[in-house]
């Protein structure tokens, strides 16, 4: 069956909602709306909420760019519409996971042997967990995953881990408490829940073999051309 559009007529003050009628079952492909902030009381994030019939456990899908009061936004929500997670297209670069250090030339792992891996629970792979790559090294990063064949597009839930696999080590500064990030050319970003920006964390002290120092996770898309 072809897709169908459900369109609300006119305009109204936020929030606006559509409730699936009785005896209906729909697969939502995309949602769009125009939010006129001319009279807004402050800056705002357009947000789509999918609210179960009981009203509990809503899935919140905010746009990740703030709209200034007085301005308007025409927003399209759709799977894969991950503007802030969408990575630029890179050619001939090895994807890199960096956990901290801005820029990447800063020490990431010092005086340590560590295992770094990037895993994705891929929507593309039908939900299977696949390991994109791993690297073992000492000294400062970055640690890279090579080879990942190009072109390469994968979307899903990513998990990055730093693991001390070989003896104890002393980490002067490593890790990140926020969702990790992937970049093909050395730009490092972290997501603090609203915006992307550099953030570092430190894990002082000596860490024993087998310690997992950092798990970073995020939902997004990795695109390499």
């Amino acid at each position: 069956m072809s897709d169908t559009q459900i369109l609300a007529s006119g305009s109204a003050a936020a929030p606006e909602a559509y409730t699936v009628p009785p005896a209906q079952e729909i697969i939502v492909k995309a949602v769009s709306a125009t939010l006129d902030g001319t009279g807004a009381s402050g800056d705002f994030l357009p947000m789509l909420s999918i609210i179960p019939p009981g009203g509990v456990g809503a899935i919140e899908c905010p746009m990740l760019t703030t709209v200034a009061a007085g301005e308007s936004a025409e927003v399209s929500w759709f799977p894969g519409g991950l503007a802030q997670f969408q990575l630029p297209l890179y050619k001939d670069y090895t994807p890199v996971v960096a956990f901290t250090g801005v820029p990447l030339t800063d020490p990431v792992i010092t005086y340590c042997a560590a295992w770094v891996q990037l895993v994705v629970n891929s929507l593309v792979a039908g939900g299977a967990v696949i390991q994109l790559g791993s690297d073992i090294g000492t000294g400062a990063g970055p640690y890279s995953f090579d080879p990942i064949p190009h072109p390469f597009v994968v979307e899903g839930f990513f998990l990055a881990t730093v693991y001390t696999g070989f003896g104890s080590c002393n980490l002067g500064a490593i890790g990140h408490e926020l969702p990790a990030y992937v970049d093909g050319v050395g730009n490092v970003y972290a997501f603090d829940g609203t915006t992307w920006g550099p953030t570092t964390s430190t894990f002082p002290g000596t860490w024993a073999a087998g310690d997992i120092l950092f798990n970073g996770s995020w939902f997004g898309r990795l695109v390499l051309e």
Partner: protein
Amino acid sequence: MPAEPYIAPMPPWLDLGAGYKLQVNAVDPTTGDQVTGVVISDFSIIVDNLSGGNLEAGPFMLVPGPENT
């Protein structure tokens, strides 16, 4: 001033039955509270209508648009 176009994420394969609500709101970036004074228009939902029935019985006036051909 024309509205700026944006894209935003939503989960894939949203297979929703009766009673599920799709709500668009404007929230404060810091507190999550609703921001007043924002007006919503052109609220559109593209669906695969599995049940094939009438979709006009929403909480506000809904006009099913033309189907893709």
